[in-house]
């Protein structure tokens, strides 16, 4: 493997204090806003902590959710729920024996000649889509350090308790912070050719934003790493789509550097439950002495306390991952009367209106006559599928020029009172709000557009045809 000289310098963490870096700073011909940066960092940090729970030195509870292993079928079902979901109609290919939509949905390659990489497919529920990838070393060597026989751990069945019959007793594994994903540049450009929400900061395709680098680390991430076959096989789940993130294109690049593995090394004791008292005692005795500790559920409805060590394994590789989701479009024209009832403040000057569908939402385009305050009243729109299910649409972006208006929306099921979607005022990203501030994620509603029978706008039924 070769390393470019710039890359090698990038990894150097020297201060190089002898260099007068003021000249490097002065050369930057812009004044950055330090307070804004500080506010953003402190806000994101707080948000991150809320999401992440306790910090690294706090307890790692090795329960079923994190101590996952082995058999891909059971793991996927356990982790992602029913797979007979909307995604079955979205992604091409059949469900395979492992319960994933077949590898035809995902193509993967790596530039690391030491690795074998194969796509296992797509898994998902109503909220999120994951790509599952399997990696092995060509020489058959393991990725992990775990060898439970040498540390005298309980047997695997005693070690893990879950609803699933896990077969491989592995320790907790996480990917390091260098994981990153971004969208293929060509697709970015291709989609940017469509009407955007202004400023070029992000574009929308049927209600889904193109990848905005703001969200790279927040939204596309490695959700899970399983190992099988004594650590020789890595199975990675990469979250590629959900409501708050940005797909967008169908090509993702993924790069990894290393995996951290928390290996139990020494039994320290047990407790019935992790109370504040237990926690404080463990903290004083171990954490304060730089000993990482995990609580592992035992078969007596309590927890065994183990000293763990973080062992790092370099896994340098990158993948490109192509998601071949269906991208059919159904279209229809909207008569002027209906269009003028849909668009407000247009003074009856809307013409040549048309509607088009994607898996994520509908888009409406129309010609208008100079008015600037025109907006679409999407509350009067209902999308009806062949099985009679009704979806509303919520606007997510628009673009208004002197002569034209373009509105992009996302679907939401009308019969789901728990559904939360984005509302917004001025169609800018910063104006996006949730209908419920306590709700921290949004459901994905992707519809196989072949299931869409008609769109009703203000009582007028509009039947769409598949665009060839």
């Amino acid at each position, binding site marked *: 493997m070769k390393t470019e000289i710039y890359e090698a310098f990038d990894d150097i963490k020297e201060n190089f204090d002898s260099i007068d870096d003021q000249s490097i700073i002065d050369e*930057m011909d812009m004044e950055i806003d330090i307070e804004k940066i*500080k506010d953003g960092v402190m806000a994101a940090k707080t948000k991150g902590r809320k999401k992440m729970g306790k910090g*690294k030195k706090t307890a790692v509870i090795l329960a079923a959710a994190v101590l996952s292993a082995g058999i891909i079928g059971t793991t996927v079902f356990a982790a992602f729920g029913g797979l007979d979901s909307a995604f079955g109609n979205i992604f091409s290919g059949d469900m395979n024996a492992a319960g994933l939509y077949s590898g035809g949905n995902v193509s993967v390659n790596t530039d690391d000649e030491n690795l074998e990489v194969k796509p296992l497919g797509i898994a998902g529920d109503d909220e999120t889509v994951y790509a599952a990838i399997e990696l092995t070393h060509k020489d058959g060597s393991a990725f992990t350090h775990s060898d439970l026989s040498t540390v005298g751990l309980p047997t695997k069945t005693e070690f893990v308790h879950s609803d699933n019959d896990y077969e491989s007793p592995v320790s907790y594994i996480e990917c390091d912070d260098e994981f990153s994903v971004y969208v293929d540049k060509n697709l970015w450009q291709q989609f940017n050719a469509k009407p955007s929400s202004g400023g070029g900061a992000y574009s929308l395709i049927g209600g889904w934003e193109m990848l905005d680098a703001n969200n790279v680390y927040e939204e596309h991430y490695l959700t899970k790493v399983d190992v099988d076959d004594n650590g020789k096989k890595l199975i990675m789940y990469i979250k590629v789509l959900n409501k708050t993130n940005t797909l967008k294109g169908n090509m993702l690049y993924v790069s990894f550097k290393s995996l951290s593995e928390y290996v139990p090394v020494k039994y320290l004791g047990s407790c019935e439950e992790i109370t504040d008292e237990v926690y404080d005692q463990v903290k004083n005795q171990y954490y304060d002495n730089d000993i990482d500790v995990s609580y592992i559920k035992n078969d007596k409805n309590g927890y065994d306390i183990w000293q763990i060590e973080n062992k790092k394994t370099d896994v340098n590789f990158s993948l490109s991952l192509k998601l071949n989701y269906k991208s059919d479009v159904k279209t229809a024209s909207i008569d002027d009367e209906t269009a003028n009832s849909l668009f407000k403040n247009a003074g009856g000057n809307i013409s040549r209106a048309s509607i088009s569908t994607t898996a994520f939402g509908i888009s409406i385009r129309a010609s208008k006559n100079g008015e600037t305050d025109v907006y679409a009243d999407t509350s009067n729109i209902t999308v009806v599928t062949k099985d009679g299910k009704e979806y509303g649409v919520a606007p997510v972006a628009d673009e208004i020029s002197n002569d034209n208006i373009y509105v992009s929306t996302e679907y939401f099921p009308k019969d789901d009172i728990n559904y939360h979607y984005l509302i917004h005022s001025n169609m800018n990203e910063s104006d996006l709000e949730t209908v419920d501030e306590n709700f921290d994620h949004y459901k994905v509603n992707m519809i196989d557009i072949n299931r869409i029978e008609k769109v009703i706008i203000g009582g007028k039924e509009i039947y769409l045809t598949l665009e060839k």
Partner: protein
Amino acid sequence: MDENIRLAERLIRKEEKALEETIDKFAKYAAAVIYHVSKGAMTKEDIEEVTMDTFITLWNNAEKIQKDKLKGYIACIAKTRAKNKLPTLKKAVMIDIDELDPEDSFSISAETEKKELCRELTKIIDTIDEPDREIIIRHYFYYQKINSIAQALGMRSENVKVRLHRTRNKLKKLLTERGYSL
């Protein structure tokens, strides 16, 4: 004790106030690193966003900070974040034709770990005499343009180019002597 070491220690202990102080002290520095890596492709807003990302990453990985290398660690994160941002930008990276040198991005066969390569490289850099050492750090570590390096060091651009060429060859030679192939 050096002020930056104390700051690093407080960051490792996850003191929020230390993070704010680190941002006050190093935000412009991180932004400048990002600016140079982006070669003009990023707007002010892009740079501010990547700078934010840099400090969030620093905070989330505070336990990895080597106390005496806080600034270097910030530069390292800033470069990684900037490089991840670049492919998502619509604006292309502008390359000055005068700066273009096919020899500039030579590769090294890293049979050993990359970390080992970095360690070797750091040692080699320290054996290079000034001002060539500074030129190579500014060029490869800070991505500074030749003209800017010349201005900062009060030299002619041609002189910087020649010195860079010689130092690069020296670097290649020393790497080869240490068992690396190019």
